[in-house]
């Protein structure tokens, strides 16, 4: 497929996945803060940190604004100047869909367009003001419908593979960011001394990843931070775990390589393999605590490097005359 269009497919799914994750996080953080004792409340700023929006947020708002939950939530949902807010992600998702209309299905387009019309014409804003949980749920449902429709309505071929690739890589990075919220909210964990608040937050993270029920199936004993962290980071069967997402991204990349010119994908494949190996072999007992934050930061940075490498390999290949001469 056309290189540029492959890039649009990749990014379209990244943006939808990103918006969906942010909705999860915002909704769960609200209910988490309602459950914990006072003093811990108003811990909204970690969401700004893990979104990488510290600087911009500080530019746009007064110093103490990070404690204002309303403001943080509005920023991450509606701020058009932020490149990661829900509204920005949805705008770009639709824009990418608009430029790939000849590739995506009518159902996908209509779903995304409906979501956008809803968001941009005030209706959703009123829902946000009056019934916020429903607002996030609707958005999430719409995003999930869109992602599901791409599996249901497209040929199982290259364009869909690039969409999946974008979705898995974005999800891997988003789960890593979610895990990092814990670090920024309550500081480093200690396996031997876990407070009820800490445990509540670990549970909230499970919930954010739709992984509570799966976790109770996996770990029959009393829940604890260490096993939750290991589950969300390393369980290959969990579809939102960091490792699980990376493994699926790797398999998708392999499909793309075998059906095309394998050598084009050598670099991103090597980077992915490296990160997968590293996550697989880390012992949770040694990284739980301070170094889990470093581990997550590494996972996020490496995922970004993988995306950049995919971009060079497939989406923005420069002059291809050399390939022509070679064949």
């Amino acid at each position: 497929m056309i290189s540029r269009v492959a890039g649009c497919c990749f990014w379209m799914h990244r943006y939808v996945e990103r918006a969906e994750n942010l909705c999860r996080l915002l909704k769960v953080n609200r209910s988490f803060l309602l459950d914990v004792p006072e003093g811990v409340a108003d811990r909204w700023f970690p969401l700004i940190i893990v979104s990488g929006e510290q600087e911009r947020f500080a530019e746009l708002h007064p110093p103490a604004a990070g404690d204002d939950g309303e403001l943080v939530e509005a920023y991450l949902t509606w701020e058009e100047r932020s490149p990661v807010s829900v509204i920005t992600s949805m705008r770009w998702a639709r824009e990418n869909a608009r430029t790939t209309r000849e590739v995506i299905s009518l159902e996908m387009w209509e779903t995304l367009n409906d979501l956008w019309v809803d968001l941009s014409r005030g209706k959703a804003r009123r829902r946000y003001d009056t019934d916020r949980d429903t607002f996030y749920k609707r958005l999430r449902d719409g995003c999930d419908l869109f992602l599901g429709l791409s599996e249901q309505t497209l040929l199982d071929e290259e364009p869909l593979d690039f969409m999946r690739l974008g979705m898995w890589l974005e999800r891997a990075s988003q789960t890593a960011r979610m895990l990092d919220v814990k670090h920024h909210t309550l500081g480093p964990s200690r396996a031997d001394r876990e407070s009820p608040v800490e445990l509540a937050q670990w549970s909230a993270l499970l919930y954010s990843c739709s992984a509570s029920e799966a976790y109770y199936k996996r770990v029959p004993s009393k829940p604890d931070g260490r096993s939750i962290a290991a589950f969300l980071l390393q369980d290959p069967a969990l579809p939102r775990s960091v490792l699980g997402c990376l493994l699926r991204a790797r398999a998708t990349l392999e499909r793309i390589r075998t059906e095309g010119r394998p050598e084009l994908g050598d670099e991103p494949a090597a980077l992915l393999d490296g990160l997968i190996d590293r996550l697989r072999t880390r012992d949770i007992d040694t990284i739980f605590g301070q170094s889990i934050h470093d581990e997550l930061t590494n996972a996020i940075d490496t995922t970004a490097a993988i995306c950049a490498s995919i971009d060079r390999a497939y989406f923005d290949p420069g002059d291809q005359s050399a390939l022509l001469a070679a064949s």
Partner: protein
Amino acid sequence: MRGDGRDSKQGDSKGARGSGKARDAHGTGKSGSKKRGSQRSGSEKSGARNHEKNAKAPVFAGYEPLPGGCYDELFAGAGKARPAIAPVVRQLDQLGEHEVRFRQRLADGAFLQSGITFRVYGDPRGTEKIFPFDVIPRIVGAKEWDKVEKGLEQRVRALNLFLADVYGEERVFKAKNAPVSEEIVKGSTGYLAKMRGIRPPGPKHVDPTYVHVAGIDLVRAPNGDFLVLEDNLRTPSGVSYVLENRLVMKRVFPGLFAKVKVRSVDAYPQKLRDGLMSLAGEDSTLAVLTPGHYNSAYFEHSFLARRMGSMLVQGSDLFVHDDRLYVKTTKGPRRIEVLYRRIDDEFLDPTVFRPDSLLGVPGIVQAYAKGNVVLANGLGNGCADDKGVYPFVPDLIRFYLGEEPILGQVETYHCSRPDHLSHVLANLEHLVVKAVDASGGYGMLFGPRSTKKERKDFAEQLKAAPRGYIAQPVVELSTCPTLTKKGVAPRRVDLRPYVVTGTSTWVLPGGLSRVALKEGSYVVNSSQGGGSKDTWVLASDDAASDAREAAE
């Protein structure tokens, strides 16, 4: 509840087939009615309520064509539908104004939902707008259309021969009583001297094709004749609206389409694909070239690519190697043999035309000259649809085909001719004077609405550079009944039919009817308060009488 009785009554009279369709129509209405309240502003809602009082009122009950002799598309006079299309008009009439308004709202919702929009330039947030649409169709009789079709085919045939000649042998300039002067043609901004001697790729046994897609703008004279107002032979746009308008009309008037046989427009993308592919080898690859998604016509480019099953590419996706055109793909380069390009000549190849163009492909003109890629439309067509050449097209038809032009055109004075110039100068207040190299209303004098001083100043300009101007009498655009806030009223319309030419020529039945939605306005452009209508060409005059029976 609304519409129930009427629909089933119509269904009954038509038997089983009809009633099925009627239920269909009712279903559409019901599901849409929920949306009504929330999507519309309060004032419009109350407007709708007022109309509810006379819910049964026929659509055209109070309709009166404009006085003063301008042609109305549907009515010869108040209450007198034009005979050829009268049965169809009656079908519409019986729906009632209230019902038609309701279906207008359904249509508006459908356009928004499907995201059929155009971009408003100069808006940093990239606002998209819906092209306003009026559900009352413009209806053209079968026989009447036959003549238009033949006339368009003839005109495009002649213009193709003209272009081949201008860039080839130049017979036209050498002939005794030359129909147009070399100076006028070569002096036009669209003439590309670099194209001399280059034959567009295509089979050798047929005349080369320059005008693969033509949009010929027509207006209706007060006597009912269609006249050519303007030829668009470069990258005419708007055809996607014709197809989408029809889809939406079928959705909101399913019952009507079951009773009235309207010629289908749906074949356009296939016809275009077939036409373009007929000029290249069998296993060729076709792509549509767009300037990108910020272009106002991006929707159309994407639409055509989808419907033709072709790639949609941008300049940066393409490169030329060894005089062949390739697209960059995730699996390496892929050859393209046919390119339906929707960017202007001057942006197409920075090595030949504008060096600052980022939209084009370096080397593509050389690939074209070598016969390695079909470019549609051809390069250099601008000298055939130039305002300065337009007055001579009837003579070109006579010259190349030895036939009389089937379609008339608007009487035009070319100020380069001394006798014409003196006539123009003497009649400025009755004429529209246009600069040949300007468009969009610039460099223009609208005589009847000009001041004495404006005319005096313009006369000076004319005398200083007479070759740069043409003049025409004011064109009375025909009107068509249109839904307005105050009821159904006459609004001005024009018509752009589309003509596709590969190794043979095909005319899309109907075309884009643009309508000036503002009262009294002549401006049909979407950027200035214009909208569009579906254009119904009746399948045959028998179909009209079928409908008459069904109505009785």
